[in-house]
């Protein structure tokens, strides 16, 4: 295992110490239990946005705490959902009287822990709504299973709902908007290499030198199929066609295209992927009007990428463009 760390068991705490030292202007970090809170929280009268999940996906979620995006993030151990006490602390810290939205990625662990937290927050009379993001088309959906995973759309939902909350919209509306983003976003990812969970010390899965895994999750969960390495244009087809056909995205649609790096893949490759994606979408009459390219929802040092498409309308576009000031995403009006 080759990592820039000290002891595996200290990675998350030391990362948070680093974040606390680097971004004191944006966030406060609470250490027991771990919570990253917007520096000026709670913002009175504003809906509080809380998300969280296992660590190892940086900058998500801690890097998205700040004006225009999240009010708090709960970082779990690496790839392990955080616990209800973290979420309860976060919820209390960001409650400015207008209620709190939990943005939850659809993993059994995340869902159950956020449920327990919401029950506890209810006990303290804080109004909480939860929206579950489940946008990963690599997973077959069914009433009888855990359903689809939450992946790339989470980042977009956090940005867009963050902007809406900043405008002072009420909890029910922000929650509806979050469901709308989820309903219009679809993702799929792939890996060229496995990642290594620090505490495990060895790769979660083995891939041959000429193999890749399509439909991978963000925790090194195995994907839909393993296949021979292929050129970028074929990889884009393997990812984007299921996405496009699932919603479906249709000729005339305007989309936000999010090409995400898994952590070990450099930007130069993401632009090659983006280039192939523009060609594929062009061929189907779908227009990219906004884009996001870079490592935003990662899987430790995994090499690979994911593609997320979000169907845009004027409202979503306007909220996407609204100012945001976080360590991970930052722009002005």
């Amino acid at each position, binding site marked *: 295992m080759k990592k820039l760390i000290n002891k595996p068991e200290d990675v998350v705490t030391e990362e948070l110490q680093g974040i606390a030292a680097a971004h004191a202007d944006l966030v406060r970090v609470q250490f027991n239990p771990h919570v990253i809170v917007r520096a000026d929280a709670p913002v009175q009268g504003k809906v509080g946005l809380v998300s969280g999940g*296992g660590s190892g996906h940086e900058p998500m979620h801690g890097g998205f705490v700040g004006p225009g995006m999240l009010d708090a993030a709960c970082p779990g151990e690496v*790839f*392990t*959902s955080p*616990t209800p006490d973290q979420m309860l602390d976060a919820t209390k810290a960001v409650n400015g009287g207008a209620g709190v939205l939990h943005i939850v990625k659809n993993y059994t662990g995340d869902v159950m822990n956020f449920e327990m937290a919401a029950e506890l927050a209810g006990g303290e009379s804080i109004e909480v709504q939860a929206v579950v993001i489940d946008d990963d088309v690599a997973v077959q959906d*069914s009433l009888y299973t855990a359903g689809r*995973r939450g992946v790339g759309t989470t980042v977009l939902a956090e940005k867009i709902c963050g902007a809406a909350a900043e405008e002072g919209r009420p909890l029910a509306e922000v929650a509806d908007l979050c469901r709308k983003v989820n309903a219009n976003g679809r993702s799929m990812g792939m890996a060229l290499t496995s990642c290594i969970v620090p505490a495990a010390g060895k790769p979660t899965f083995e891939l041959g030198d000429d193999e890749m895994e399509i439909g991978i999750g963000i925790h090194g969960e195995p994907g839909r199929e393993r296949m021979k390495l292929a050129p970028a244009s074929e990889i884009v087809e393997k990812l984007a066609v299921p996405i496009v056909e699932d919603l479906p995205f249709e000729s005339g649609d305007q989309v936000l295209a999010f090409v995400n790096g898994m952590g070990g893949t450099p930007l130069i490759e993401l632009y090659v992927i983006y280039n192939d994606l523009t060609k594929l979408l062009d061929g189907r009459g779908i227009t990219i009007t906004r884009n996001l390219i870079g490592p935003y929802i990662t899987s430790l040092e995994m090499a690979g990428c994911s593609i997320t498409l979000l169907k845009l309308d004027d409202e979503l576009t306007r909220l996407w463009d609204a100012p945001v000031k976080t360590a991970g995403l930052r722009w002005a009006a």
Partner: protein
Amino acid sequence: MAESEQASRRMSLGHDDVLRWIRAFGTEVDANKEQLTQLDAAVGDGDHGINMQRGMSAVLVKVDAAGEEQDIGALLKTVGMTLVSTVGGAGGPLYGTLFLQMGMAVAGKDELSPDDWAAALEAGIAGVQARGKAEPGDKTMIDALIPGRDALKAALAGGASFEDALRQSADAAGQGMRDTVPLVARKGRASYLGERSAGHQDPGATSSHLLLEAAAETWGEPEQTG
């Protein structure tokens, strides 16, 4: 079992017995951390052993600190709360709920009869199902817990000694655990794999077997009398 051994048969569990079981489970989790993690890597995200071990170490510190003041219900609730706040993932809420509900079922008691134990287990499992919505055959810890519970109840109802009932319970859990191998997962992270989840043993069922095995081994020894 011979008449002469009747005298040493365990008829109830005290605070200390329950504590020994919890410690034994902790030891088992420690010893099998690697295997649990390997199993989880095959169908999940490779952290089940790490998570459970982190949780059980915290539990042992906690129950040591709590001392013997607590009744058994409170002790089990402490275990549950500690797991909830230290394990995370799916394992945290599920094992946390298991212990919390067991604790609720025996609230205030300082001694558990075999039937109390069976009732506690039943309540704990009901909690796991309420939280996780898993049915038997979904390839989860439920597939070890339910056969374990059923075997325990059947054995006790059939007049078996507590020791025998615990052994049958653990063995049934072991069988349930092995029976998860061919199953296609419908709950938890393994469900993302669809058909590819078949052929692997469920990590949660494996840790649940360890839990019931720890009970059989800890309490299966003749009671120290005197």
